[in-house]
Structures are given as C-alpha cells and as structure tokens.
C-alpha cells in the first residue's frame, strides 16, 4: 500500500547508517536496565528463598503472594506504580525487579526443597553448621534450578522492558513505538531483532556461566555420553 508511493523497507542499512547512534544508545539503555534489574532481583531473591526454606510457615504465603503478583500484568503494574514513583526509569526498574523476583524466589525455593534429604543428613552427620550446610551443600545442589529460573527471568525481562513505553522508558521499545507512530518499518524491525538478539546473548552468557560454576554437571554430562 505504502510501498508504491514511498519506499518503506523492513530492513535497511540506510537506517542503521543514519540512526546508528540512537539505536546503540537505546540498546545500551535496554541492556543496562535488564542487567541492573536482574542483579537487584538476585540480591533480594536468594535471602528470601533461604528465609522461606528455613521456616516452612513463611514459604506458603511467599509462594502464594508471588503467584498473585505474577497474575497482575506488567502494563497494570507500571500503572499502579507510576503515580507514586513517577514517569521514567525508577518505575520500570521496580516493575522489572518485581517480576524477576517472583520467578527467582520460586525456582530457588523449589531447588532448595529438591535437595536430596540423604545428602543433607549426611552433611549434618559430618557436623556441618546450618550456614555451612546451606552454602556448601544446599545451594550448590539447588544451582541447576536457580540457573533455570535466572534464564527464564532474564529472557522475560528483556521482553518486559519494552512495556516501559507506557511510562516513557522502554529502551528499544521506545524505538518500536516511535517507528510505529511514524510508520517507519526499518526502525521497528531493527529494534525488534535487537531485542531478540539481546535476549539470546544474555541467555547464552548465563549458560556459559552455569557451565563454569557447575563443573560437576559438565563431567557428569560427559561421562553419560561416554
């Protein structure tokens, strides 16, 4: 329809040449926002999960609350926060941390609860203190589940950042939105592809970090193949 009158390609090098700086800037905003949200979420989720693990009475309410919060859409959460935290970065960051937190707490708790009781008993029998038990036995054993949660949370956070458009701070989403308003297809497609690429790269980094952090899983996989 539009193509006949004005050339409006989905992918164009010309766009990158002209607005490369702007694209790069939004990619950086997107990446730093994601990483920052994930770091805060990890710092909060681990103690929360351990607390819930220590006292089973807390685990029910914590899981229930995270379940309810997860049902509230991000768009609505940003709207609930905006009147109090204002328009912009803070609101988006709080929302992102909240969602990542839900996934992380859940997965960490499931991981901790899934540790073989015999292993815990054995460590206790060897005279491990509760703290040492947690740090050297339970957490390493829960690591696969924690990593799975981290991967899900990171990938969804990259996608969620774009919803920040509603409060004017959506990283690459901002470019998609402007591209849509001005019917600039290259701008939309480029930022969408970059979003996917960012999610993929972060996911890959997590997989590599997990391989490095869990050498035992690597050798087990190799021995299973052999």
């Amino acid at each position, binding site marked *: *329809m539009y193509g006949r009158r004005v050339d409006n390609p989905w992918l164009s090098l010309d766009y990158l040449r002209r607005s490369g700086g702007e694209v790069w800037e939004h990619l950086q905003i997107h990446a730093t926002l994601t990483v920052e949200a994930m770091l805060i979420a990890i710092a909060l989720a681990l103690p929360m999960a351990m607390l819930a693990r220590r006292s089973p009475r807390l685990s029910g309410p914590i899981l229930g609350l995270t379940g*309810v919060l997860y*049902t*509230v*859409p*991000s*768009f*609505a*959460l*940003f*709207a*609930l926060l*905006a*009147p*109090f935290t204002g*328009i912009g970065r803070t609101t988006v960051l709080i929302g992102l941390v909240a969602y990542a937190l839900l996934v992380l707490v859940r997965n960490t708790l499931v991981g901790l609860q899934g540790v073989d009781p015999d292993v815990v008993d054995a460590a206790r029998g060897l005279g491990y203190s509760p703290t040492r038990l947690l740090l050297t036995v339970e957490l390493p054993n829960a690591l696969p589940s924690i990593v799975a949660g981290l991967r*899900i949370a990171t*990938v*969804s956070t*990259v*996608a*969620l*950042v*774009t*919803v920040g*458009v*509603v*409060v004017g701070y*959506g990283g690459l*989403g901002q470019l*998609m*939105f402007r*591209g*849509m308003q001005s*019917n*600039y*297809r290259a701008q*939309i*497609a480029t*930022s*969408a592809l970059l*979003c*996917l690429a960012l*999610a*993929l790269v972060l*996911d890959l980094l997590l997989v590599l970090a997990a391989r490095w952090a869990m050498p035992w899983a690597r050798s087990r996989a190799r021995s299973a193949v052999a």
Partner: protein
Amino acid sequence: MSSIGDAWEYLTDPVSWTGAHGMFGTNLDGSPRFQQDSIIALAIEHLYMSFAAVAIAAALALPLGLWLGHIRRGGGATTVISNVSRAMPTLALLTLFSASAIGFGNRAVIIAAAIFAFPPILTNTFTGMAGVDADVREAAFGQGMTRRQVALRVELPLAVPLIAAGLRTSTTQTVATVPLAALVAGGGLGVIINTGVATQRYGQVLAGGILIAALCLGIDQLLSRAQRVATPLPLRATTVAAA
C-alpha cells in the same frame, strides 16, 4: 496521596463506568463501536478481544498438539516455539503488525495476542497426549482400537487436565497482554491507563491498573474453577499435586 483520592473519585463516578455518551456507538461505516470513555464498554471490548485471540490460537494449537502428541513427534519444536515466544516482546509484534498491511487497531492486537496464546496450548496438549502411559496405549491398540479411537477415546481424556491447564495459562496471559492494545490505537482497558498518562491524570492511571489487575485475578480464579470441573474426578488429586 492525591492519586489515590483521584482514583477513588474516578472509580466511584458513574459516568466513568457508563461513559458520557453511552457505552456503545456506531462508527462512520455503521459498524458497532465501544465508547472509549466507559469502563464497562472497555471491559467488554477487552474480553471480546481476549477470547477472539484464544479461540484462534486454540483452533490451531489443539488439533496440532493432539496430532503431534499422538504420533509423539515434534517435542523439540514445541519447546523451541515456546522459548522464542518468551523472548519476543509483545510490543514488537504489535508494532510490526500495525506498520504492516494488517494496520492499526484491534485486528493487529487480536492476531498478536493469538500468536502468544498459541505456545502454552500447544505445549500442554502435546505433553498431555505424549505423556500417556505407553502401557495404556498398547492395551488400547491390543483391544483392536484404531489410531483415531486411541487418540480420541484413550489419550485425549487422560490429557484433559493438562490441556485445561494450558487453556487457562493462555487465557490469563492473553487477558494480561490485551492492555498493550492501547499503545497501538486499539481498545480494551489499557485505554484508561494510556489516556491517563497522556493527560497526566495519575488517579485515572492508578484506577486503570487496579481494574486490569482485578480483571486478570478474577479471570484466573474463574478459570481455575473451570479447570477443576473439566478434570475427570479420578484425575483431580493428581492435578492438584502437579499444580
């Protein structure tokens, strides 16, 4: 906080529910139109878009999942589809569709929402069908049942709890996705938030957030009941354990 007071005022004003000019009108071409200043009309539009999206997704995902699950192939592909759909921002699809031949508005939203509603239904239907005990399948074939009978009379009933769970996930998620429609000139309850931000009426923004959150929680509750009812009695205990 004045925002809370403003939100209360907005929510208790009858005009914000019924709209200043009624709930429904007609477009220039005579088609019916939901008035964008009425909470009730926007909620109905919201549900209509959600169910249209889920219906489209289910019409495609259920048969495909049943078939793939029955022949027990394509498990890897279903996983890839659900992973990619998680990484794909909803806004990206919405804006891509709006700028394409599909155009702005509700049609783009319904198609995009249907695409996101597709993976949970497909994955759960596939897992439900493929997860049926091989012995049960063997026994059914041994009794001389045809493939079709095994699929529809043996595997499908056993897969119903998971299929119902998939439909619930997908519907809840769609109701939560549709608010984004407001960003691409569509309708639904997101309009309240978008208008509020644009006019700097943060009480209205807050009220919109509360309304959408309430709708999502309500739908989720309703569907969890429906899921229970849809699950055959002998299978209920195991479903609860799995959830």
